[in-house]
């Protein structure tokens, strides 16, 4: 009689210890259209891969076919949470390339509004990060404060999110009538509100167990990967472009750069909370010393930077956002390259996540504070 051989050694998905899990692109905790391919052993992440590019619009290529004035609104669409900071990179690069002398008042108003934008960006980060971890109340409070900033933006620029805030050589309009009053009222409120957030979160046992020791990165590793902004300062590296290469009116104001000790999610949270307080200090000093005068430099009708290349970067809310510009002397740039902070910061995701649980991946994506509009461009 013939014996039937039963294949008992065949490998199936169930036999393998490694499971592949696709997180995103339509996942609320990936903060946009980010797809993370996780290799899991049970609940533990043993490997991961990021799939980006779902939001690619070809910004850098579009810029090669636009004049220098027209490119400015496209910069708002990179990191749409921090449109005012992004716009500043672009106009400052062109201004410095052309050697324009921007009036002091414009520099001060730029400083105030970019710092307000930093607070708005950090508030959105705080709200969504807390929501990912499970604290819903903070989201509502953070959006309440952010609303006040967006109202100031609407009155000043005419738009709330993608502001198209600056023009080469200065600003489209001077500050509106109640500008100082509105900003003073906001910075009067925000200090107490930040204390409230800290009371709810900083000592909360759930918050601590979800953030302390999660996603640890040393200062040397952070530099090697190319992190910047609060993600770098959370690891204890004192690097802030506002101090190292002052732009706008940052040379005239006094502020501290908060640093973390352990480089974990909790330290990055503390760094960002302290940064909001320092931003408040900067705004207070700038609004007290706000000079009078014009807000626009003398700009030629046709903006044509001299032939050559130039790199300029500022400290955006997420990190170093820079612009590398190659001009061939015509009305359109020959090449525009964005130095994106979120793209560089996302590279640390693999290093931070390995060895943690799936739930911690959500916390680590939150702590890196990424915006996919800027990663994909």
């Amino acid at each position, binding site marked *: 009689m013939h014996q039937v051989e039963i294949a008992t050694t065949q490998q199936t998905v169930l036999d393998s210890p490694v499971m592949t899990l696709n997180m995103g692109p339509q996942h609320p905790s990936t903060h946009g259209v980010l797809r993370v391919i996780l290799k899991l052993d049970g609940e*533990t992440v*043993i490997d991961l891969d990021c799939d980006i590019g779902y939001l690619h619009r070809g910004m850098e290529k579009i810029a090669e076919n*636009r004049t220098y*004035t*027209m*490119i*400015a*609104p*496209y910069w708002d*669409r990179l990191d749409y949470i921090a449109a005012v900071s992004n716009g500043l990179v672009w106009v400052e690069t062109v201004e410095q390339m052309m050697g324009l002398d921007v009036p002091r008042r414009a520099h001060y108003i730029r400083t105030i509004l970019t710092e307000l934008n930093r607070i708005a960006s950090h508030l959105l980060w705080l709200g969504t990060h807390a929501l990912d971890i499970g604290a819903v*109340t903070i989201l509502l409070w953070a959006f*309440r404060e952010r*609303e006040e900033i967006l*109202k100031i933006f*609407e*009155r*000043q*620029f*005419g*738009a709330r999110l*993608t502001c*198209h805030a600056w023009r080469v050589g200065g600003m*489209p*309009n001077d500050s*509106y009538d109640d500008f100082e009053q509105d900003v003073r009222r906001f910075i009067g409120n925000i200090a107490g509100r930040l204390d*409230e957030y800290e*009371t*709810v*979160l900083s*000592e*909360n*046992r759930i918050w601590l*167990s979800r953030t*302390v*020791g*999660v996603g*640890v990165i040393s200062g040397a590793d952070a530099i090697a990967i190319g992190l910047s902004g609060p993600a770098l300062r959370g690891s204890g590296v004192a690097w802030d472009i506002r101090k190292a290469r002052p732009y706008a009116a940052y040379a005239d104001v006094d502020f501290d750069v908060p640093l973390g000790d*352990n480089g974990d999610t909790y330290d990055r949270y503390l760094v960002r909370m302290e940064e909001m307080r320092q931003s408040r200090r900067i705004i207070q000093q700038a609004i007290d010393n706000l000079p009078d005068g014009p807000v626009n430099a003398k700009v030629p009708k046709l903006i044509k930077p001299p032939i050559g290349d130039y790199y300029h970067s500022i400290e955006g809310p997420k990190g170093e956002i820079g612009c590398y510009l190659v001009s061939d002397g015509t009305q359109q740039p020959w090449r525009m390259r964005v130095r994106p902070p979120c793209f560089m910061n996302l590279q640390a995701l693999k290093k931070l996540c*390995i*060895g*943690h649980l799936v739930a911690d991946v959500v916390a680590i994506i939150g702590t890196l504070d990424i915006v996919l509009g800027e990663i994909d461009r």
Partner: protein
Amino acid sequence: MPLVSVPKLTFAQKLKRFFMIDLLKGLGVTLKFNVGALTDKDAVAGKGIYTEQYPKVRPDVAPRFHGAPRLNMDPETHETLCIACNLCALACPEDCIDVIPMDVEVVVAGKPRRKKVLDEFIFDTSRCMFCALCQEACPTYCLELTQDFELATYSRAGFVWNREMLEQGRETVKYEA
């Protein structure tokens, strides 16, 4: 695989945890807001309320707001201010403006002359990103981005506004509060 390191708690921290000081502090803050919402007599008048009862209550939009486009007319003669100079179309990064001029015969100082006037103005609001560069380019303050923010239509063709729509504006439904 790196291990997750959690720092050890001190005795004072352990004591705080045992008596739930951390949680009670946070609950105190949220309770303060709950009591405040119940006892605040001005709550109805809008004090401390950040939400709007749209569409019954319409938001107070800033004067500089970049909303729906409009072609302004001379308030006395009701003729268009547009001189068909095409500067707005050249300033637009998205190339969503088309200015179509036409020549008319006019008599200037007794002599017949040809004059370029506006025939048709096409504004594609579906591609517009409301950067207001066209508004800044306009030499006669004709093209303006207004405070009207309701731009939704039922079809893609509805996004393309012609001269008549740009001059008259769109009808918006107003609800009674």
